[in-house]
């Protein structure tokens, strides 16, 4: 009998907390949100810490619609309940089966995962791997889960919220508020007792008391001596930045601007042109405002990682559009700038990139070059991206209306200006990068893959710019020399690529075709195709070097991911798009005139 009772008690103990797992709903978090804590090398408000931690654990900062601050405080104040609650999503089916987790369950509790032997074994095996070992996808997922569990463990043990300053050392470690030991009396106003009261008020969902105590706590902590503490204005800025989420707002505004601009292509009225311009400015202004907020929060230019570079990519499109509108009175300029800007920002917002402000690695610190090099490079990419959009438009126009050369020529001219300006900016970007390398590493050029690919793309654009203005009669021997050199290069390069596989043969064949197109073709269609090829070289420089080649000196803050697959997937779609439109154009074009002398036969037909 007593045994049965004991068993029941155990069952109850196990089930009870489940029903208690409720979050307070009535609390005013305004004050506690601004609690200054130390987190990951910075001193953000509690709000930022909460977004970071809750986002890492649950995959979304506003998990189940609750404020991240509520989540973080709940886990900190009531760990025994939340250890049992399903919080950690493992959505990948293959990963679950690899870890021998239940097939139908997607969200797991801390206790479940920590007690799961197969996961334990995997983490254990991973920790024994030598340093510098390149993890496979499973291993990187396991290490991700392991890190998340560590983070959550830290929260449950109250080691994450660190608001107690180091009194003297500006770079000292801040401490969490540790509850006073039993029997130890603490003054009524001490942070420990305030923390304990905050906990009680939080767990009791006592709004009045919570507001009162959090005010007292923040004031008490702000009164403590600190070696370094950000100003209240800066904290307010960061809270404001977190609240308005400027980049999401900006890309949505840009989508609106793009829709207006598209309408503007039909409604050719001056007054509507003003509306289009205002719509465009709204998105661009929001983005600029967000960038300036982020700049002051980070205390450095926000140009240190993939996320921040995408912001600049989008900003560059807007900035160039303003310049272009002055020089080229084309309705299509604000349309492309809004659309592509929105795309770049939406990518930054939606891709699994780390949006948090983090401290930067030593090589990026204490140098003005980052503030020059990165924005210039990103603006050049922006302009070239707008150029490649025109190249696509060109293909569509030529395939749709092969007889109407006027529209095509108009787009071609625009495209030319864009890639001309883009190439100059790219050159300035490469040059400033080279100067930075000289000042940081002692050499201005080191054949680093990022350097090489940027030069490859630049040379590609140079061929476009040169071949376009060239109308010189080509001597016959040039074909022979060209063919010989290309053959010689293949002879030199091919044996060095190692054993030939199907994909390598395909890539080489593609390269040869690309070479022939770059050198041997002319005309508007050819220019458009070349521009697309060159832009893929830019994409290779921007993401491919990090994700496909996965190496080099520029791999700051990049993770692994399905990025390379996406790149090839979109590249394949683009290739199909080009091929289809080219074929349509050839099928529908007016009877070709005789080839003008001195151009390749293929060139003449384009």
């Amino acid at each position, binding site marked *: 009998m007593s045994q049965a009772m004991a068993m029941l008690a155990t069952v109850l103990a196990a089930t009870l907390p489940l029903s208690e797992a409720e979050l307070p709903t009535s609390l005013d978090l305004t004050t506690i949100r601004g609690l200054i804590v*130390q*987190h*990951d*090398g*910075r001193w953000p408000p509690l709000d930022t810490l909460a977004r970071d931690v809750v986002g890492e654990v649950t995959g979304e900062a506003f998990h189940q619609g609750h404020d991240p601050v509520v989540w973080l405080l709940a886990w900190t104040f009531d760990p025994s309940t939340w250890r049992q609650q399903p919080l950690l999503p493992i959505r990948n089916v293959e990963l679950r089966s690899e870890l021998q987790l239940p097939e139908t369950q997607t969200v797991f509790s801390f206790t479940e995962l920590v007690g799961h032997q197969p996961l334990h074994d995997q983490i254990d095996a991973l920790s024994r791997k030598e340093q510098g070992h390149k993890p496979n996808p499973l291993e990187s997922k396991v290490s991700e889960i392991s890190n998340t569990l560590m983070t959550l463990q830290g929260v449950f043990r109250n080691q994450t919220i*660190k608001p107690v300053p180091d009194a003297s050392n*500006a*770079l000292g*470690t*801040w401490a969490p508020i540790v509850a006073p030991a039993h029997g130890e009396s603490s003054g009524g106003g001490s942070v420990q007792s305030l923390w304990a009261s905050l906990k009680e008020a939080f767990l009791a969902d006592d709004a009045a008391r919570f507001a009162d105590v959090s005010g007292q706590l923040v004031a008490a902590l702000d009164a403590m001596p600190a070696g370094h503490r950000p100003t209240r204005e800066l904290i307010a800025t960061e809270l404001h930045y977190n609240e308005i989420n400027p980049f999401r707002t900006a890309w949505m505004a840009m989508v609106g601007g793009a829709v207006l601009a598209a309408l503007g292509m039909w409604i*050719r009225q001056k007054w509507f042109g003003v509306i289009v311009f205002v719509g465009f400015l709204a998105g661009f202004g929001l983005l600029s405002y967000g960038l300036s907020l982020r700049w002051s929060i980070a205390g450095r230019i926000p140009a240190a990682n993939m996320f921040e570079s995408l912001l600049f990519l989008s900003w560059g499109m807007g900035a160039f559009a303003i310049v272009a509108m002055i020089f080229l*009175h*084309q309705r299509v300029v604000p349309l492309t700038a809004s659309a592509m800007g929105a795309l770049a920002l939406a990518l930054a917002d939606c891709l699994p990139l780390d949006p948090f402000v983090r*401290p930067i690695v*030593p090589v990026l*610190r*204490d*140098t003005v070059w980052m503030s020059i090099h990165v924005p210039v490079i990103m603006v050049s990419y922006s302009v070239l991206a707008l150029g490649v959009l025109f190249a696509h438009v060109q293909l569509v126009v030529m395939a749709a209306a092969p007889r109407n050369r006027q529209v095509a*020529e*108009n787009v*071609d*001219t*625009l495209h030319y200006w864009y890639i001309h*300006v883009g190439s*100059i900016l790219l*050159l300035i970007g490469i*040059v400033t990068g*080279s*100067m930075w390398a000289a*000042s*940081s*590493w*002692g*050499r*201005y050029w080191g054949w680093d*893959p990022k350097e*090489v*690919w940027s030069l*490859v793309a630049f040379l*590609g654009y*140079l*061929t476009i710019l*040169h071949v376009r203005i*060239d*109308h*010189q009669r*080509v001597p016959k021997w040039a074909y022979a020399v060209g063919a010989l*050199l*290309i053959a*010689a*290069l293949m002879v030199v*390069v091919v044996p*060095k*690529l*190692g054993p030939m596989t199907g994909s390598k043969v395909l890539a080489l064949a593609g*390269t040869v075709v690309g070479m022939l197109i*770059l050198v041997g073709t002319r005309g508007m269609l050819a220019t458009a195709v070349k521009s697309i090829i060159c832009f893929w*070289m830019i994409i290779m420089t921007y993401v491919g070097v990090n994700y496909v*080649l996965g*190496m080099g000196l520029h791999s700051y803050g990049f993770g692994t991911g399905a990025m390379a697959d996406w790149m090839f997937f979109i590249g394949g779609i683009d290739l199909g798009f080009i091929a289809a439109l080219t074929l349509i154009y050839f099928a529908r074009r007016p009877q070709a005139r005789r080839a003008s002398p001195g151009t390749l036969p293929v060139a003449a037909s384009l």
Partner: protein
Amino acid sequence: MTPTPMSAPRRTLRTIGSLWFAAILLVLLLVGMACATVVESSRSTEVAQALFYRAEWFTLLLCLLAVNIAAATLARYPFAKKHIGFALTHVSILVILAGALVTARIGVNGQIGIAEGETTREFTVPVDVLTVINRTDSNEVAVELDSSAFRGFQPVDNPDAPVLMNGDLQVEVLRFLPNSTMATQVVDENPALSPAVEVSLAPAGREQPVWLFPEKPAMLGVVPAKFRFLSDSNELARLVAETTVDRGEADGVVKIDYGGLKFEFPLSRCLEEAVPLKDLGYTVRVLRYLPHANVGPDNKLVNASDNPINPAIEAEFVGPEGTERRIAFARFPDFGSMHKGQQKEGFKIAFTAPQKSAHTVPIEVLLGPEDETYVRFIPDGRRVVTRELSLGEPVDSPWPNQVFTVLRRFKHARMEPVVTPADPEADTRMPAVRLKVSSGEQSSAVWLQKYRPSTMTVNKVPYELAYHRKAIPLDFALTLESFTVGRYPGGNRPRSFESQITIDDPVAGGKSTRVVSMNSPVAHGGYTFYQQAYRQEAGRAISFLNVARDPGQIVVFVGYIGLMIGMIVVLGTRIVEKRRAARNVTSIGAVGLGSPVTGAGVAKLQTVSSKV
């Protein structure tokens, strides 16, 4: 549109400087570089550098490009106003290429790897050198191995390398191996007396050769063996005559407990006879002593070696009730009571193992002054069985199925490294060179691996040979006082890498302490030191500094600035042309397409204006 007649040299310049040629060169460079990054990713940076960026064909392409650009520029001289941008751009590219040439030829880019507390007066550059130092007069001679063979990835016979002369010594490179592994072989060509024997202890017909050197015990399978060379025949005779060795080893002790009555007997006695247990009517005899007891294939205890790894005895008790066998382990005294439940209640047996003297080795090979060779087997560390040996003829050994053979006998043995190509290709390559070292009539060939200096004596002169990176001396001493990694607060993220160095330069006024950190290099004595990397090793940090002196850099930067301005001027020229064209077009009444300019008109007029 009719081209104006051109002079013949100008026509040639036009041809060499044609855009088609430029486009072909650009595309070739572009494809080469793209492939290089793939090779770098799949193999290594070193391979990519050697096969692409620093290869002759790549340099040739760059030279052709320079010629093409120069020709194109010259062909348009003297420059019209609209060609200012063109000229500036193209001359700037030539300046950049010239600067790069200066960097490649006279620029220095090296490295210092220095541990905390150490001082250096030199740095290394990525140029391989072969160095020979005469140890007696410290005369050092070095030659650079700078032909492409030494940067390649194929073995090359007689690579193009200068002959190195140090006094009478002449060193030539016979072969280059890009990736090697090293083993050693023993050769009989030591000028000094250095005897060694190659022996085998193995089943007949399956020799397992092992070299034995004096005072260096080696293992013959599991049996330790040693080799002694005796120049004194009398001493040899004495050792050969010995039948037992007694070097103070302690006998084992067999301990028996019978209901509180305790007996202790020497192990050697129990091995020889059945020892009566006073007047209990029992005797005990040790049937076997197993220094290294092991469970054999049919679950029986067998001896695995003569090393006292797991000493055990098998004892036999004989009494009125019959006989009984027992096993006792020196290291596991409770084993019997744990595993044999059915054993006689009364008897407990334990034993301590005999202690061999450290000097006793079960196999001793003796070599006399007249090449007399003997082997002394001392399997139990006490009794000696001596056999005379002749080359290649096996003798029986005390170990079952094992015969002992002396295979080779060298009086002038020397360990010689043998280098073979590594397969598969190792991650970190270990290149090696085969050298012909000659002095007068004497000549020999040796292998030398990179970063592994070796010594050799030629005509009684000791030399040190080394194959390594070239070291360039500094006019001052550089000491790494300490290296620190600054961390961001509250985490582990590195914030700074700082090397505190002291530069001691008597010319520049003595010692000065400086800090080299990321993005904050230190310049001294014509060189600039950059923080590059660090490594923790054995509790102290090793900091790697990049050392650079590059007169080409300023030239390249001038070219950069010219190129940037030039391209902007070209853009400006194009815009002006476009504006002018637009005015013309509007005046003839063409209508734009939502723009004040017709694309067609611009394109046409551009054609005219850009025609050069």
